[in-house]
């Protein structure tokens, strides 16, 4: 099958990518992961697994966050989150599994479930089909295209006595 490309192609499926619980808070702008690739260093295994299995999910859920990996630079693995107020949060993940790392990130810099549900409700309200303006992504551009409403003045001119220009120019005093 042509879509099963690369190692563990399940990581490329939308079901897998959507399954991540980590949606970073708005204040988090950059996330960096430092780890080593040597298989003998067991205390880096959790970070390696996190980068391999969970990082695609995190990036999918947070497309506006820059995620960078640094390999074979430091003896201990760690994750750094850079916030919008130029501060940073350091996560020491020495000898922790990828699940523990994920839980820790969700607890510290992830949005809570309640907040995610509220945002989902708010986004549904914003996508109200009763709204107009195609420029903002709604289906209809104007009420003039609805049957039963006043047609668009481009196509059918509005009666003169409805126009402010006619009223103010004194035509209302003219005898017909």
């Amino acid at each position: 099958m042509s879509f099963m490309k690369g190692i563990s192609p399940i990581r490329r499926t939308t079901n897998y990518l959507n399954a991540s619980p980590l949606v970073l808070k708005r204040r988090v702008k950059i996330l960096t992961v430092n780890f080593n690739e040597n298989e003998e260093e067991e205390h880096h295994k959790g970070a390696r697994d996190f980068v391999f299995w969970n990082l695609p999910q995190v990036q999918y859920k947070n497309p506006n966050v820059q995620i960078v990996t640094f390999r074979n630079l430091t003896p201990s693995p760690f994750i750094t989150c850079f916030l919008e107020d130029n501060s940073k949060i350091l996560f020491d993940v020495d000898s922790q599994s990828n699940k523990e790392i994920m839980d820790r990130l969700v607890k510290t810099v992830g949005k809570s479930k309640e907040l995610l549900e509220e945002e989902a409700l708010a986004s549904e309200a914003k996508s109200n089909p009763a709204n107009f303006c195609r420029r903002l992504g709604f289906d209809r551009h104007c009420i003039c295209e609805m049957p039963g409403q006043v047609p668009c003045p481009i196509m059918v001119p509005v009666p003169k006595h409805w126009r402010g220009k006619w009223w103010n120019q004194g035509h209302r005093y003219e005898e017909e």
Partner: protein
Amino acid sequence: MLKLPSSISQRSQNCVSLIFVRHKTWGKAVIPHKKPRWIPMARSKMFVNPPTLLIPKEELEHEESLKVEYERRMNALAKYLHDDEAKFSDRGEAGLKEAEIEEQEHRRLVQENEEENKRVAELRKIRLQKEFEQKKIQIQKEVQAQQEVEEERIRKADIYVREQAEQFANRILRPDLEGAILKALDNPIDPEFAIDLHGHI
């Protein structure tokens, strides 16, 4: 030269053009181009009745009442939305309070993370200490093994040297060479012999 309407006679125009009229001289100057203010209204326009409104009064009153009602409702709605935004928007009171609560929560979580980092650092310290001890034992074992190998080598060398020294004592000197040859010829050693189970030839 001022351009005056054609209804004014040429004589009047000439009189007007000779009289200086004050106007704006800097910026976007507007040269007077209408009838000067001291010229009276034209007689054809002087006694014209004001225009009468032909639309029925009831209709106008109805329109006015509708307009007033509409404006009341719109103003009420605008005020309501304004108050709602002031209270519940991100920049309103509720928004500021929520931001403060969120900031406190963030600080608490960062503090918890620092404690978790310390705990992991302690575990790492214990692990590194354990690895150090294991490595120390491993090195000691390797050194000991190497020492044993060296001692064995020296022991074997010592045995070899002693054997060679013993054999050196039984060496044949040049003056005794002929006698040793004759002795060897007289006592040949035959390696081909049979032995029984007890080792007797």
